[in-house]
């Protein structure tokens, strides 16, 4: 246990990034969650930040490597394995 019953807005805010990335201990995650349940201002700010991360990730995740590159790599590795590269 952290020995803390509840967090102030400032204490919750200090944990914002780590909370969004699930890098806090289970107790600290719970404390932040409980704060967000009763503080609409912090909940709005945290929600906004989470939205930014998700939207950026979504923008950047829709990527497939081209079949041509896969072919090129396979060829290059094959040549290297045969000692040609």
């Amino acid at each position, binding site marked *: 246990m952290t020995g803390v019953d509840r967090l102030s807005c400032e204490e919750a*805010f200090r944990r*914002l*990034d*780590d909370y969004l*990335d*699930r*890098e806090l201990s289970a107790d600290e995650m719970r404390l932040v969650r409980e704060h967000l349940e009763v503080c609409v201002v912090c909940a709005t*700010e945290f929600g*906004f*930040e989470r*939205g*930014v*991360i998700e*939207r*950026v*990730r979504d*923008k*950047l*995740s*829709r*990527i*497939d*490597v*081209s079949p041509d*590159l*896969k072919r*090129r*790599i*396979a060829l*290059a*590795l*094959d040549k*290297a*394995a045969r000692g040609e*590269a």
Partner: protein
Amino acid sequence: MGNATAGAHTPETFEQLLTPLLDKAFGLALNLLGDRAEAEDAVQEAALLAFKNFKSFEPGTNFKAWFFRILVNWCFGRHRQRKRRPETVEYEDVPPLYLYEQTRAAGMQRAGADPVGEVIDRLDATQVRSAIEALPEEFRAVAALYFLEDSTYQEIASVLDVPVGTVRSRLHRARRLLQRRLWSLAVDAGLVSAPGGEVA
């Protein structure tokens, strides 16, 4: 590669380990370099380099972290060649909640509005990537890995071979720098209006 003690180091094993990572590897290179052709070259060159050094990979350890480290280093070398001028951009601190405050000041936080979407969804992936590519090098790799997939700080630390605390501090700062860059891009593209004509 063919001796008895190196059974785990065959070309077949290498390809089996590499192939499932290629999409993510390409995404990572693209986030770091911002150009499809250069990203393809980077993945191919890193794959070849990794293959030639496959004996130094310890079987049973994290191949993905090992290969991504090679790829990141290759991309950084390429990036340095390309950008001869010293990096002086955006090192000063950016306040927290930068986008939140900007969208609020711009009157975008109306009831039922989606201010995050109004900024980020209207930028295309190339613009978002350019914002990451514009980050100083120490922040760029952390951000590129972080936004590529839902990695833990420990996973990012393994790729970059730095302490977890370094990942944490760089990532926290990178996110703020990135928010300012995204806002600036949205203003410059005329997608949003800077409050009071402020230059973002």
